């Protein structure tokens, strides 16, 4: 550990390297810093939202190695070497990701606070490839609360964006399914 690393409460910050939205970032984090607080407070990437901080709302959903997770319930220090995609990393320059565009088109939000989490979750869900029907989308998107109640519009947006999103997955999809594949007999 670096002699100049920041300390707090007698604990020294730990160095980690993550691939964040396509960029390699070398960071120093305290052990108790959640992935969410790293993004919001240390890296000023506030697109990922804190709604409950306890894994009960989904507003903090990000894609970790291509899989959707609650960034509030995991420690940044545990993800040395990981690949992370946040809402800021989904668009291709000025061109919105198909899921983002569909959310605008279908007015799949009101206040917008749950929206980045909904979108990351929807992309993660498409990558999992387990939602074939509207009922399955509803169930598999139930980890993302929307207090404004825009669920029907969220459903419509996801339904429309699924095929295009599938096309964008490529490498991400491989990663997400790796866990399943490597243990196949």
């Amino acid at each position: 550990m670096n002699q100049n690393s920041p300390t707090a409460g007698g604990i020294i910050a730990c160095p980690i390297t993550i691939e964040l939205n396509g960029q390699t970032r070398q960071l120093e984090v305290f052990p108790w810093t959640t992935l969410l607080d790293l993004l919001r407070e240390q890296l000023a990437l506030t697109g990922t939202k804190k709604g409950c901080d306890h894994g009960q709302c989904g507003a903090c959903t990000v894609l970790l190695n291509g899989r959707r997770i609650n960034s509030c319930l995991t420690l940044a220090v545990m993800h040395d070497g990981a690949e992370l995609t946040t809402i800021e990393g989904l668009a291709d320059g000025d061109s919105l990701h198909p899921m983002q565009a569909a959310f605008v088109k279908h007015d799949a939000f009101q206040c917008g606070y749950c929206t980045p989490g909904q979108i990351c979750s929807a992309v993660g869900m498409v990558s999992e490839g387990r939602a074939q029907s509207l009922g399955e989308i509803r169930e598999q998107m139930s980890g993302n609360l929307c207090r404004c109640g825009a669920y029907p519009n969220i459903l419509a947006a996801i339904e429309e964006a699924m095929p295009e999103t599938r096309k964008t997955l490529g490498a991400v999809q491989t990663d997400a399914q790796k866990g399943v594949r490597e243990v196949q007999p």
Partner: protein
Amino acid sequence: MNPFSYARPTRIDEAISLFQPDSRYIAGGTNLLDLMKENVVRPAQLIDITRLPLQGIEETAEGGLRIGALVSNSDLAWHPLVERHYPLLAQAILAGASAQLRNMASTGGNLLQRTRCYYFYDSTTACNKREPGTGCPARSGLNRIHAILGHSDACIAVHPSDMCVAMAALDAVVHVQGPQGERQIAFNDFHRLPGEKPERDNNLTDGELITAVELPASGFAEHSAYLKVRDRASYAFALVSVAAALKLDGGTISAARIALGGVAHKPWRRAEAEAALVGQSAGDAAFNAAADVLLQGASGFEHNTFKIDLARRAIVRALTDAAKGVAP
């Protein structure tokens, strides 16, 4: 969260040797960090076990499955062998939490989930589980989600897992390793009833680490059903859940398993209830009789007596679904 130190061993023996009384192992972290943020748990050290070689799902020589403790809930539920041979387990896992949480939560960690009792979580209140000897305000307080079976004067909390209910029904075996070496614990002996020591959820000793969960060959794939009854359609803990599994010989039951979730400090099984089904013809009469046996001694509190009747109805429904062989 309190300040703590962090270690990331890569070998199991290294992890175990790092363990101190105020250490905690962390894998998915989905429950531990939740509890740490509420100041319910305050470890001085976290030992990150995610780099240990506890991944993977393998077939055992006996035709069962050995599930590494670090296998995530979603990988387990969606594993082809689990989907094919243990649909009860897949259904139970998918009935729990959310997709995001299932992607993080580990198999071992799921066994170690702590109760959702309001008083356990709110550190301004008394709680025998959190602070032994302080009392149990749930007994005379808000107890709609609490136990109807196996509770004690000290604690009426319930175990919140869905996965464990299926594993209990399937007679899984928990493999652990600790400072004293390796041992295996039958699933039904893993979790405890609260008794006088509600602070202990399970029979692990200090420093012991779950390394794997093993499923026996029979997964009751033809006739099983997991039914979860809850206050909303998804993303809610069970009021009552039932893992039901049958073997049918024509219309006659040749083997049966029933485990209940949301009703006790551990997944609730009674060999007598299962024995009562064997030899009977699958139908309401036998299912009701088995429910009577399984719920023998059930007693509720001010807000949760409905769970007794609800459990009975859920048992009958789950057994009916299992007998039909329908995938819900």
